[in-house]
């Protein structure tokens, strides 16, 4: 089921699509294939909502898109680079440079402060540091600015992450995923641990911060969120294995 707003998969905004998946197949060792995706792409700056029941392979797909897992067959290309052609070290570096990741919960390193958590991607990616400081701010100042935009007060910046509420933690995690303008932000059920009001507020912030520069792929089982996105895709439509199971 696709949404009314449908942006061209080959992004008109210039350049390669944020994400392009082609004939992807993956199986856990010693198990039958759990993922079989023919085609899937996200344009630059596009926001895509991916929904499906648990067990349909969402998290595995996200791991593959993030380059943490390697597919047995097919290609995953982020910002025009096929992850499969990169050596493991380069892949990790590439992920640091181009991809931000948001989990459902436990996003933050508990013993680091909010600011330190947000700065983590800069620690591992020179490119993101460069882009974060492009406006003339130090990385720390940029992190503080982002936290401010996401509604985290100044006093909370130096508090250890474990001392923040779940809603605050998710917003700090969003800032961390966004710092330095990654090409693609992958979010795995980021609102599922929040109550309804907080969930909507969080999504608003996320979408506004992503803007046109950062593509967003958000996975959730909550269909009420779907209208806010450029496009909505069902896991069953994407994953031929899931479709086969559904029809059994």
């Amino acid at each position, binding site marked *: 089921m696709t949404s009314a707003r449908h942006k061209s998969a080959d992004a008109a905004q210039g350049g390669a699509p944020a994400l392009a998946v082609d004939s992807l197949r993956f199986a856990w060792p010693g198990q039958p294939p759990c993922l079989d995706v023919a085609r899937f792409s996200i344009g630059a700056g596009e926001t895509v909502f991916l929904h499906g029941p648990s067990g349909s392979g969402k998290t595995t797909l996200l*791991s593959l898109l993030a380059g943490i897992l390697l597919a047995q067959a097919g290609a995953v290309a982020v910002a025009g680079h096929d992850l499969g052609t990169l050596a493991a070290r380069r892949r990790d570096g590439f992920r640091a440079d181009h991809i931000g990741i948001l989990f459902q919960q436990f996003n933050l*390193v508990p*013993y680091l402060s909010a600011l330190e958590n947000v700065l983590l991607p800069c620690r591992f990616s020179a490119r993101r540091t460069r882009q974060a400081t492009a406006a003339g701010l130090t990385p720390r100042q940029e992190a503080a600015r982002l936290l401010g935009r996401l509604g985290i007060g100044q006093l909370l910046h130096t508090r250890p992450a474990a001392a923040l509420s779940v809603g605050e933690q998710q917003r700090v995690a969003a800032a961390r995923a966004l710092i330095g303008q990654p090409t693609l932000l992958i979010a795995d059920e980021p609102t599922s641990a929040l109550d309804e009001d907080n969930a909507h507020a969080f999504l608003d912030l996320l979408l506004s911060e992503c803007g046109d520069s950062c593509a967003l792929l958000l996975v959730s089982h909550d269909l009420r969120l779907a209208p806010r996105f450029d496009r909505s895709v069902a896991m069953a439509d994407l994953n031929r294995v899931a479709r086969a199971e559904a029809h059994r």
Partner: protein
Amino acid sequence: MTLLLLACKSAWSRRGALALAILSIMLSVALLLTVERLRHAARDSFAASLSSTDLVVGPRDHPLRLLLHSVFHIGTPDTGMSWASAQRIAADPAVAWTIPLALGDSHRGFPVIATSSAFFAHYRYARAQPLVFAAGADDGGLFRVVLGAEVARRLGYHTGDQLTLSHGGADAGADADTDTDHHANHHGGRQALHRDKPFTVSGVLAPTGTPVDRALYIGLHAMQAIHLDWHGGAPIPGVTLSNADLRKFDLEPTQISAVMVGLKQRAAVLSMQRKFNSATEEALTAVIPAVALSQLWELTGSAERVLDAISALVLVVALCGLAAAVLAGLNERRRELAILRAVGARPLHIFLLLVCEGGALVLIGAAGGVILVQLAALGLAPWALAQWGLVFDLSRPGTGELSLLAAVTGAGLLASVIPGWRAYRLSLGDGLAPRT
């Protein structure tokens, strides 16, 4: 932030669980260092007890035994050497000075040495330091006694005080009450006292940090005098000699325990040693003190190496404990590691993070061990002084200690490779969803 800082913050957040592991490393490093320092301190103190003395001559005996009882007052001699031999040695044209020594009596646990005034003139210790009087002097009186610094301090004696000596070794009943001992003259099991011949303290020596501090010094004639009415280790019943009577006797000693010898030419020590060793008049042993001590260290060398090996083993055990503690905590940290992977950390970073953490913990433990040793040094030194009269300077770091600590840290880094490798494998397999 650097990987090291991240590792430190991570370890600090788990300090409760790691505290015991760090404590065991602290203790094992402290043990290692203490063993090392003790060995050097013991050698230094023993060596500093006697200086500038060319030979120690005594009755035929093992050279080490002779040195131990004549210089360190450890053990008692079985036999004595004749006074005639001592005089022959003193008369030798190659000899510059001699210090005759006779052991046998004690006072409240401290040995009493009978010697001549040459002792105060010629005895040297440490860097050729002579003996100095802190109070009084050697007035040459018949029943005068000079006290070592520790004796005076512990028993509270001053110049002019009177004391009574006990017959027999210093270990036969310390702190015997001199005033209320009714069985003073009863032989067999109890300390026998020379109650009728009290001595007067004529001087107290300044502290030397050697066994000199723990001894009392009387004249050779006095030693002879107090044993005149004794026979076979006990006073002869019914026989008492007043001090006036004593003057009528020949108080020349007949037997002594050893003679310290200083030669006019030090290089002649080898031939003089040979000469005294092969004297036909009496079977004697002549010892070069530095040589005998060198042989002592050869003997203790193997025991020291065993101690070293045991300490090293204890350290290895402690390091294994630390690695096990970190390994056991890895399961709870899989989320943390997954987050780091998500923000761009490579598996190698995870590995290095764990290794840095282990190394930092060992470094902290080792530093704590050094502090522990310094504290122990404060406590151990007075005990060593009290036991043997030796100054154990345990607070001075040895020359090899820095490299030892570096080696310990290196070993810690090595031990951390195990949890590091495990974390590396975990982070590879877990991906975005660790199966905790």
